[in-house]
């Protein structure tokens, strides 16, 4: 496992807690990256375990909301994110929940956008500001946020993974990690790729244009 010297000397962050503030901000930011250009109307947070207990004391609530509004870990506006959300007309709500056999610091985020869609993700703050996204729109995932990522829902077809990776290669996008799983031969499958370069809208459309591909969610690096 690679650990950068800046994983130790960092993150540069607004306190008080790397797990419950910085990590929370990044989980919120994952949702911000997911909904990208869409307009957020309301966001609901379901918090598990110690995450819920630290909601106010560690500024977890402010950090989650700040992240969803697009703030970075070192943005002083994190402190006032709840007021800022109100000013922008974004409704915010929190509840404690039992999310199952998950890391103690886990949250499910449900974001409603003005086009009537709901985006959902589930992720954990695993320490030192690091996160792991474990579910995207109901599909199991394993995204660290250290790289840009694409989650491709498709039918299992001969050669499809090769086709997907060729599109990336032709566009000079090097793959860092790739994870694939499927329900059964020929049935629903999901391929999750973390890349070294951002996945542009053009590449995303190219991936979506494949007949066997149902949809593609892309996410910038989560800062």
């Amino acid at each position, binding site marked *: 496992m690679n650990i950068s010297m800046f*994983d130790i000397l960092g993150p540069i962050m607004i*306190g008080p807690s790397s797990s419950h503030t910085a990590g929370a901000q990044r989980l919120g930011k994952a949702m911000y990256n997911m909904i990208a250009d869409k307009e957020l109307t309301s966001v609901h947070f379901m918090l*598990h375990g110690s995450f819920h207990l630290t909601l106010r004391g560690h*500024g977890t609530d402010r950090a989650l909301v700040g992240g969803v509004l697009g703030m970075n870990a070192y943005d002083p506006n994190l402190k006032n994110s709840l007021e800022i959300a109100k000013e922008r007309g974004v409704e915010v709500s929190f509840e404690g929940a039992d999310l199952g056999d998950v890391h103690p610091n886990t949250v499910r985020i449900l974001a409603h956008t003005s086009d009537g869609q709901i985006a959902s993700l589930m992720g954990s703050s695993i320490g030192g500001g690091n996160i792991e996204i474990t579910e995207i729109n109901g599909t199991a995932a394993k995204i660290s946020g250290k790289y840009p990522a694409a989650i491709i829902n498709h039918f299992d077809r001969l050669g499809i993974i090769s086709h997907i990776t060729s599109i990336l290669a032709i566009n000079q996008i090097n793959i860092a990690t790739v994870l694939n799983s499927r329900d059964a031969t020929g049935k629903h499958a999901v391929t999750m790729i973390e890349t070294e370069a951002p996945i542009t809208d053009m590449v995303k459309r190219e991936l979506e244009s494949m007949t066997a591909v149902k949809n593609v969610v892309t996410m910038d690096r989560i800062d």
Partner: protein
Amino acid sequence: MYFSAKEMLAQLEGTDKRICDLVIANEIELYNTDRETIFSKLEERYQIMYNSAHDALEKEIRSLSGLTGGSARKMWEYLQRGSMICDNTIIRGAAYALSCLEVNASMGLIVAAPTAGACGILPGSLLTVAEKYDIPHQQVLEALATASGIGQLIVKKATVSGAEGGCQAECGSAASMAAAAITEMLGGTAAQAFDAAAIAMQNIMGLVCDPVAGLVEMPCAKRNASGVANALVSADLALSGIFSEIPFDEVVEAMYKVGKSLPSTLRETALGGIATTPTALAMKEKIYGKQDAASGCTGNCSSCSGCN
């Protein structure tokens, strides 16, 4: 690549390179970066550490909860009055550490090193020693790199999370990192630096994480202040020629095992230690209201082992 102190020492054997050189070379190789970028990032972090270590010295910064604040200023004024028991170096370091924690608790900007709860120990220790010996700035940045190397080993083999390993994993790790950094910065060998790190960690073995009202305030700030003392004494022990009979890698493993055997009540749940003293519970009630405070229970039984 390195996964242990033993490996690092082997890689340094017969060379005139230091731990920081190995860390920087490793970073360049694994992350496709260069010296200039690395030192620019170290400088950025140094500035934030410096600022957070000084911001609360002359003005009182109160925490979000209102429970704490003003200790860094008291320590700083005490230092100016000049009649301390400990020498200037330690008291100044302690004041810096307290300032970092007060900035942190007021949702100010800090560098987690390795965590926010322990963010005062490395800056406090390093800044005060650098000031004492008027160490050239470049060497101070290199010392940060040394510290990060020790932290990398601890993350690889153990944990730096209070929820997983108790305060020994956070403040212990930070003190280990600082002790090694100071030792190497003052000309100690890599072996001495690892011994200093091992000693600092041994001194804190078993320390629990028992935050009052679950906040990163009490006893966190004062533990950072004493963490500076731990780091400085450990560096002195190593530089005097005293060895750590138990090697660093084994001490880290021991810390990990001790951490895992700590009950969850003593691992950042505020369900044990000073967090459940009458005074602490009264403070918790004042902040969160009567019902929440009484049990800390949210009714999510499967996510909590508070009743065990």
